């Protein structure tokens, strides 16, 4: 008799638990969809050819965002050019060469910690190290170096994980054929791990594109007379453009600012989705 009521109680608490956790999950989904919908709804009105090719006027209240997009691309491309080689090599070190010692553990700890440092602290570091000490001044290169420090953990981790997925047999086979470790990595392991590495890195770089704090004092400006012409130039940036208007331009145009937000989010999302889809396609081709 008591057994029956226990089961009924168990089943009721099960139902409650499912409902509560399900509700939490639904809330999360709803918020995400709300965010997406809100951005699209309010921003889509601004998107037209003029918006994407014109320059900002009247402190952003009119005109377009061409130099802002260009500046963002400059900085992200430079960051990629720095982060990818260094991060991939570091990932190779961790996966293929690092001994199982305490120092390797310390390196891994440092990487996770780097991922947790606040972006504004990176901004301070960038200011002190790259703008001032290295003498680059406020420039694309200073901001890119700062963003590189921020994005390195992502690329290193993506590389290491991708390399780990490659079975040891392949390395053994290559070594047994008289290839050095280096050649094995370069000719066999790295090409096989490429999809994972590239996708992980792209996701990290896409996030870097949306960061404001690291570029605040290292090179981003709100208004500029012409497009950037080199790595030592200042630059305009999509996230900063949004922030600057909302906080210091009275009467900022919601349409244009939401349009800017939409361009930023769309850019980041499209790139991320394409990268993820590409990786799935590659994975389907070669199953380990």
């Amino acid at each position, binding site marked *: 008799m008591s057994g029956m009521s226990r089961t009924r109680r168990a089943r009721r608490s099960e139902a409650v638990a499912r409902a509560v956790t399900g509700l939490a999950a639904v809330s999360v989904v709803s918020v995400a969809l709300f965010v997406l919908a809100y951005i699209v709804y309010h921003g889509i009105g601004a998107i037209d050819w003029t918006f994407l090719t014109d320059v900002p006027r009247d402190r952003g209240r009119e005109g377009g965002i061409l130099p802002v997009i260009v500046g963002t691309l400059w900085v992200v491309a430079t960051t990629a050019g720095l982060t990818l080689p260094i991060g991939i090599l570091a990932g190779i070190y961790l996966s293929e060469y690092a001994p199982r010692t305490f120092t390797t553990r310390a390196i891994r700890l440092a990487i996770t910690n780097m991922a947790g440092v606040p972006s504004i602290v990176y901004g301070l570091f960038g200011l002190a190290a790259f703008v001032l000490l290295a003498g680059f001044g406020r420039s694309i290169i200073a901001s890119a170096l700062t963003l590189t420090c921020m994005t390195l953990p992502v690329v290193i981790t993506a590389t290491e994980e991708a390399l780990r997925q490659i079975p040891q047999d*392949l390395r*053994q*086979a290559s070594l047994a*054929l*008289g*290839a050095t470790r280096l*050649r094995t990595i370069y000719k066999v392991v790295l090409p096989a791990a490429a999809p994972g590495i590239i996708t992980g890195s792209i996701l990290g770089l896409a996030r870097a594109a949306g960061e404001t704090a690291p570029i605040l004092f290292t090179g981003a400006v709100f208004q500029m007379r012409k497009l950037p012409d080199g790595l030592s130039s200042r630059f305009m940036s999509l996230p900063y453009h949004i922030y600057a208007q909302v906080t210091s331009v009275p009467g900022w145009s919601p349409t244009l600012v939401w349009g800017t937000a939409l361009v930023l989010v769309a850019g980041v999302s499209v790139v991320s989705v394409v990268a993820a889809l590409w990786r799935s396609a590659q994975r389907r081709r070669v199953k380990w």
Partner: protein
Amino acid sequence: MVNALLLERDGTLAYTAGAVVADDAVDVATREDATAAVRGTFSLSGVSVAYGRDRVIEGVGMEIPARSVTALIGPSGCGKSTLLRCLNRMNDEIGNVHVDGRITLDGADIMGKAMDPVELRMRVGQVFQRPNPFPMSIYDNIAYGPRTQGIRRKSELDLLVEESLRGAALWDEVKKSLKKHAFELSGGQQQRLCIARALATKPEVILMDEPASALDPISTQQIEDTIAELKDSVTIVIVTHNMQQAARISNQTAFMLRESLEEPAHLVEMGDTKKMFTNPDDSRTESYITGRFG
């Protein structure tokens, strides 16, 4: 300077182990007594292997003659694979492994300072238990070794690929689809691809670690046939726990045994295969062969 030769045999191209070119401009490891021993001869004496502090093999001495098949047999854990890995210094790749004793290939000490392990592995190839082709085309798999050796000309590579595939009895099946991805081959074909890949560096010796254990009986038979063909031109050392296989394909057999976990494994007996399987000297050999343990 002897070049790789192609021999005509029954009107078809057959594989032949080539000799090696020593390029004067190249800093090649000096060989102590290279002309003395026939190419592809191993000589071991007093070989011991320890993983950290755990001695797994002790006092192994044997002669592995060229152009023949030598089988290493023994129950699981008796150190056969470990010994095999000494012959191409693949044990170096595992940390904390210590190898003592003397191993010579064609008279030259393979663990001496003058021997580059990378070069050694071009002369001593290996085929593994599970087929492990690279995620590339059939052609690129086989061309991997030669390309590592510096061969770039397409004509040369084409020739080598064909030779090697013939040597592994795979040519007829894949000659029309060399660009096919290696993973699309069946298990047995992949293993023969791995054999062809090992052949492409024109090694003097090929080590095989239970090459057919992961395959079906038909593929196993094909592998054994291939080994029979190859032994006239390459020395083969094969580890197998399949005694019938050892009896079928080998010229000499070595029996190893680890009697307890406190003691390292050692070589119990080695000799001509026929003798080992019909009238071995050691009673332990006889027990193992008749299936009383292992």
